[in-house]
């Protein structure tokens, strides 16, 4: 397989946008780099930028490995990506409005109705609910990879509670602290205004008639894997970080319990899945949510960001239809590529997939976080046979895609500097007609040689992402 290297071209020459960095790296003594890497580790530990891993001892925290070689994107490439992301997120929001209102796209036969309406992520409680500005996905994390020839693909859209933005911000802070000289030499587009931008968006979608909304961040609690990020964002925006038990609903209005008595809440940036939001509507056993909050939401007395029911648009079984959505709602040709996808619920596709398992990536339709997937070329015979059984048992639970030759980038690993595969997750913010993002996003890197899985839960690390200004 041919991999696209972010730093070097096929002839081993340094790509123009990496020239400055490469010169610096060559000129910097290895001892200094080593010392800086140790310093970064210690600083991350002391600051407590950690995440918890599910299935490990409760409360145990791990550091996400941080790599000091940045991922550099030239501005021309970023401009193209940005325009494609705007288009895509706009269409996804229009799709969500549509499926919870007139369902034009289903009537037009572009997506099979049962695919949407029978989807576990389709939330009938949202039918006819008019969310402010028609926005469902206020925060979208779009996973983008670059394949063999250097072309970008959207791997998946995360419209529920995408995480990782705090690492994007902390990685930048760390790079600036460790190597200030690099920022003097390069025109790196700043990203630190993300929390301001987010707060502005959240305030913009307050319920009608609220002029000075109270915004809060809702977290499942200190043992959640992304708890650091929840506290970070609340602090950076200067809003309260609440848990479900801090909130209650009275007469379809949401209040938080404060030392001065109940205080009304208008906008909730919730980092809690739909299923746990309201035990009177969704999972009864959820103690993390707020009883009655969905009624308050339906009544328009509180805004949830992201909206309830966005999962129906980022489900892997809906993913193949996104290009069609763009054509249908915007009348434009998609600017970003979708990965060709085999839908195993279609008998022809299933037959093909079963015949080509060793070369495909198989994903659970509702899976996330790199769990429950098969990377054919990297799997043993037993693993492949295991998935074959799963596929035959429950074909509609899976999709398959060709294994993409994910691009790689030089990365510090045990044996020195070696190429490792990476992806990119820009964070796209929407309110009304306006879709914005800070330049770049979070670059995740698979630290295991040859691995194509970049998720932090699977041992992935992160890199600072530089969009170079002209």
């Amino acid at each position, binding site marked *: 397989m041919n991999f696209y290297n972010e730093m070097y071209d096929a002839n081993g020459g340094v790509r123009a946008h990496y020239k400055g960095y490469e010169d610096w790296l060559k000129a910097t003594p290895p001892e200094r780099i080593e010392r800086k890497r140790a310093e970064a580790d210690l600083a991350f*530990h*002391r*600051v*407590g930028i950690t995440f918890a891993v599910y299935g490990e001892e409760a409360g145990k925290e791990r550091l996400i490995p941080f790599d000091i070689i940045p991922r550099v994107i030239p501005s021309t490439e970023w401009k193209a990506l940005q325009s494609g992301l705007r288009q895509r997120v706009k269409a996804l929001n229009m799709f969500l409005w549509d499926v919870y209102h007139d369902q034009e796209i289903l009537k037009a036969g572009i997506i099979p109705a049962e695919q949407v309406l029978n989807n576990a992520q389709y939330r009938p409680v949202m039918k006819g609910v008019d969310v402010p500005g028609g926005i469902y996905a206020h925060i979208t994390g779009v996973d983008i990879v670059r394949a063999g020839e250097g072309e970008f693909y959207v791997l998946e859209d995360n419209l529920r509670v995408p995480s990782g933005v705090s690492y994007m911000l902390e990685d930048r802070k760390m790079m600036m602290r460790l190597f200030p000289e690099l920022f003097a030499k390069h025109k790196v587009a700043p990203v630190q205004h993300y929390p301001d931008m987010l707060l502005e968006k959240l305030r913009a979608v307050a319920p009608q008639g609220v002029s000075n909304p109270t915004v809060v961040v809702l977290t499942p609690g*200190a043992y959640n894997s992304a708890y650091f990020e929840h*506290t*970070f964002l*609340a*602090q950076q925006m200067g809003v*309260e*970080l*609440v*848990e479900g*038990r*801090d909130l*209650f609903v*009275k*007469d379809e*209005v949401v*209040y*938080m*319990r*404060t*030392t*001065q*008595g*109940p205080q009304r809440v208008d906008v909730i940036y919730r980092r809690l899945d739909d299923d746990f939001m309201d035990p009177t509507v969704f999972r009864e056993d959820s103690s993390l949510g707020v009883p009655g909050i969905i009624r308050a939401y339906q009544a328009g007395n509180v805004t949830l960001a992201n909206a309830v029911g966005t999962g129906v648009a980022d489900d892997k079984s809906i993913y193949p239809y996104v290009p069609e959505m763009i054509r249908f709602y915007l009348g434009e040709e998609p600017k970003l590529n979708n990965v060709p996808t085999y839908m195993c619920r279609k008998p022809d596709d299933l037959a093909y997939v079963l015949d080509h398992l060793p070369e495909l990536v198989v994903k659970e339709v509702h899976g996330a976080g790199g769990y429950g997937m098969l990377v054919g070329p990297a799997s043993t015979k037993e693993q492949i046979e295991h998935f074959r059984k799963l596929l035959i048992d429950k074909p509609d639970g899976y999709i398959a895609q060709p294994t993409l030759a994910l691009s790689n980038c030089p990365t510090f690993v045990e044996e020195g500097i070696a190429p490792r595969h990476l992806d990119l997750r820009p964070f796209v913010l929407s309110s009304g007609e306006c879709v914005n993002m800070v330049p770049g996003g979070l670059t995740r890197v698979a630290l295991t040689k040859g691995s194509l899985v970049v998720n932090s839960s699977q041992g992935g690390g992160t890199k600072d992402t530089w969009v170079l200004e002209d």
Partner: protein
Amino acid sequence: MLSRTADHLFWMSRYIERAENLARLLDVTWQMSMVPQSEEAANQNWNAIIVLNSLEEAFAAKYSVVNGENVLKFMVSDPDNYSSIHSCLRLARENAHAVRGTLTTEMWETLNYTWLEARDRSFEQLLSAGISDYFEWVKVRSSLSRGTTLGTLLQDEAYNFIRIGTLLERADNTARILDFKYHVLRPLGDEGATDFYEWGALLRSVSAFEVYRKVYRDAITPDRVAELLILNKDMPRSLHFCMNSVIKNLDLIANRQSGETARQAGLLHAQLHYGRIEDILAQGLHEWLTDFMDRIYLLGDGISKDFLVPMAEVA
């Protein structure tokens, strides 16, 4: 501010203060154990620490003998003992973790780093490195935590709850030490010579030895020690000083239902503000201190009900 946030701040500050007080008490006892004395007398001093913290049962469940090493191990490093320095530092950090967004970066890093350091040191390492160094370290970390709070935190409600937690904990601790030591060192009716070293140690445990000299310029007598630790309004670890600060901070966070708690705090404060040591001693120091500790406890309880536990759901 969220009630839960205030609750975490309150307990965060109590635990770090508790760790410091414990380090002070253990350090003084450790220093005292080096003064020539019978083994029985020495062990009595160690036992006092267990009794002072009402941990007789928990200690007996793990150790058969009361001696310096066992008591130190139990009170310094035992993760199962919720009153050990180890546990206090962990709980302070856990409470801070739950509200780290409310703390300044400096405060959070101080508590987080303190815990990470403490966690990685075994009792044997502490002993061989000199346990007094460790107590010193705990005091410094607690001071650092107080310092970052004072130097970086906005003096809003969060600050008020942190101060109240710190001072209630400290008042309780000073009262406890005084009650216990006074009892042990000066049995009823004994007007004989007082043990300079013992009283000196008590003063040192609350950083009041030099203060005593400055204030009285005279020999150490039990009654003056009691006066200093109870009624002196300028001594940062005295009951009067603590209550001064408690009512000031309580006043700043008052809400619709906290009137009774404020009244109780005011009453307690008035007693210290206008009280005389002669009257307190006439009433019986032990009785007086027991009553004080009961009322401090009720005060903590009232603050908890008025501010920290989620309020009744009335809009």
